[in-house]
């Protein structure tokens, strides 16, 4: 019982933190609410990346492709039919003449993200190390290139506008919670543990019969589905999107969040996403002057300087991340376990 309770901390900690942020969002002014929503959607994206990168230990730069596919699928399919002929002129008639509701669009985004990840993962999951990183990066480049240039499936290089802004406080909080619970259930399952074993020692895992290719493919697909879902939340929060918003910068930012929080734990993914989004929001407020004890104003344009400098500092001073890559435990263990070796 005790152990089970301690294990529950793994999901309760992140979930309560997300609910707290959601609660704070309801108390914030309309102009500040966006910051909280943004943080919650980033939690969903970073948790999606964690499901593959964190648990398998294989670096992937490709998870944002699934966010992009989810975002554009959910976006294109929810623009009202009567406005579509005006904004999406060269799109396939099938896509032009149909639109779906909000929840359906999120499920569609998740399904597409998962299927895309499965198709891509089938060949790619044989790779590991830098080769896997670069191959998944190639997937990101191809996805971005096709979404940007193929105007039959979306808006191409123009902005996709008129997407219903349905990701409010409730949906953003629920969305982040869904991602956290799915990630928790997966990492506690037999499958998740097998994959984790392969991260710690691939040779030993293989020798006890773990099919590493299969386990990685499963995690990649699950991560793709969650990323697609998060992309759906993202587009419904923004209301309009371009292909550049789900490309390199988002890839680096979300990976940095995961590593700053602690690559190897769900708690780390959530803490990293919230800490960096919070810092970013604070800094952009500070550029126009905030009042914390005394009025504090940053020179214009210095937000990114501070944000990246702080990220670099955290990584230099605490290479295993803010949480040290450990899960939150409700009960402090009597004997401290030896630190997990970073993979």
């Amino acid at each position, binding site marked *: 019982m005790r152990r089970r309770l301690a294990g529950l901390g793994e999901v309760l900690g992140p979930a309560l933190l997300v609910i707290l942020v959601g609660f704070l969002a309801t108390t914030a002014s309309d102009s500040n609410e966006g910051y909280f929503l943004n943080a919650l959607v980033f939690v969903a994206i970073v948790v999606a990346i964690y499901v593959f990168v964190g648990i398998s230990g294989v670096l992937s730069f490709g998870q944002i492709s699934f966010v992009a596919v989810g975002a554009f699928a959910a976006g294109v399919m929810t623009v009202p039919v009567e406005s579509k002929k005006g904004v999406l002129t060269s799109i396939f008639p099938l896509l032009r003449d149909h639109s779906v509701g909000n929840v359906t669009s999120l499920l569609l985004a998740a399904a597409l993200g998962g299927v895309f990840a499965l198709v891509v993962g089938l060949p790619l999951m044989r790779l590991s*190390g830098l080769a896997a990183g670069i191959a998944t990066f190639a997937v990101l480049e191809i996805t971005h*290139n096709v979404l940007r240039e193929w105007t039959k499936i979306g808006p191409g290089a123009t902005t996709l506008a008129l997407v219903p802004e349905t990701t409010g406080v409730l949906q953003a909080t629920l969305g982040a919670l869904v991602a956290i619970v799915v990630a928790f259930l997966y990492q506690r399952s037999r499958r998740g543990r097998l994959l984790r074993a392969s991260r710690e020692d691939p040779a030993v895992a293989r020798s006890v019969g773990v099919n590493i290719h299969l386990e990685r493919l499963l995690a990649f697909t699950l991560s793709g589905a969650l990323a697609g879902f998060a992309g759906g939340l993202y587009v419904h929060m923004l209301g309009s999107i371009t292909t550049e918003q789900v490309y390199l910068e988002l890839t680096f930012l979300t*990976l940095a969040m995961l590593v700053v929080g602690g690559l190897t734990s769900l708690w780390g993914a959530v803490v990293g996403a919230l800490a960096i989004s919070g810092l970013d929001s604070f800094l952009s407020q500070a550029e126009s002057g905030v009042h914390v004890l005394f009025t504090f104003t940053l020179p214009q344009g210095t937000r990114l*300087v501070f944000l*990246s400098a702080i990220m670099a500092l955290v990584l230099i001073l605490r290479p295993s991340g803010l949480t040290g890559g450990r899960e939150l435990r409700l009960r402090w263990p009597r004997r401290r376990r030896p630190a997990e070796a970073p*993979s």
Partner: protein
Amino acid sequence: MSVLASIDLQTLGDAFGQGAVYALMAVGIGLVFGVLRLVNFAYGQLIMAGAYTLAYTSGWPVAASIVSCFAVVVALSLAMDRLVFRPLRSSSPAVMLVTTFAVSFLLQAVALIIDLRDGTLGEVASAVAPLNQAITVGGVDVRKVTFVAVGVAVGALIVLALVLTRTTIGLHTRAAASDFRTARLLGVRANRVIAFAVVVSGLLAAAVAVLLTVQNPFVQPTFALEDTIVVLVGVVVGGIDRLWTATLGGFAIGFVSVLVNAALPTDQTVFLPSVVYALVIVVLLLRPAGLFAWGRRAPVERV
């Protein structure tokens, strides 16, 4: 046949020029990876800093402008090593890589602030522009910079090969690149070897800054960012474990991009990245240890 017909001497010249510049960048990235096991994503920002130096010293004599570019880039490269790489030496590769993302963003943000002081984005580096003129060789227009690029690349590679094989520091560097721990046990000084690699990679970045600003004198904070990403991909595709396979990989991706661009029908060239990256995936699947890494098994997990 139509594919072959579209590849003429003109295209070949451009392809060699592009490949040469990318090969130089690949050496810079590969050298640092060899001794530090660190993929330096911020390498492009060294080049960007060099390009800004050239832009801000446009009024100076060309030689002075180029010398100051080298000085700034090498100083920045050393500072990066001292402040960022050294504290990270024992960290995992993923942490090192993500830290270099942060450094890359930091330098871009700083460049943006400096650039925007005059109210407009981007500066023009005009001092070295004359190299961009074309000269006609056998009916083909070749920009002077193409010759310079190929010349600089070949020259730099020969000098580097001599230094690496004929000098003590070169021997130490190669020893450190193949097994850092054993090399240290045998008396190779880690900091000296790393400083050597960092300085050489800085010199190469400065040379690339000069070559790239000739081709594109309009300098922005994102200058050379895309090229760096492409070269990083090329380096891994070629085989990052060895300097010469990494260099060949950098050359190959530059060379092939230009050829594919020429071979695609005009209305399809927007899909150039898709074609190139699809090739990258195919090569990685067939030869995960690197295209040019013959007779070796795939390396065990690194990142």
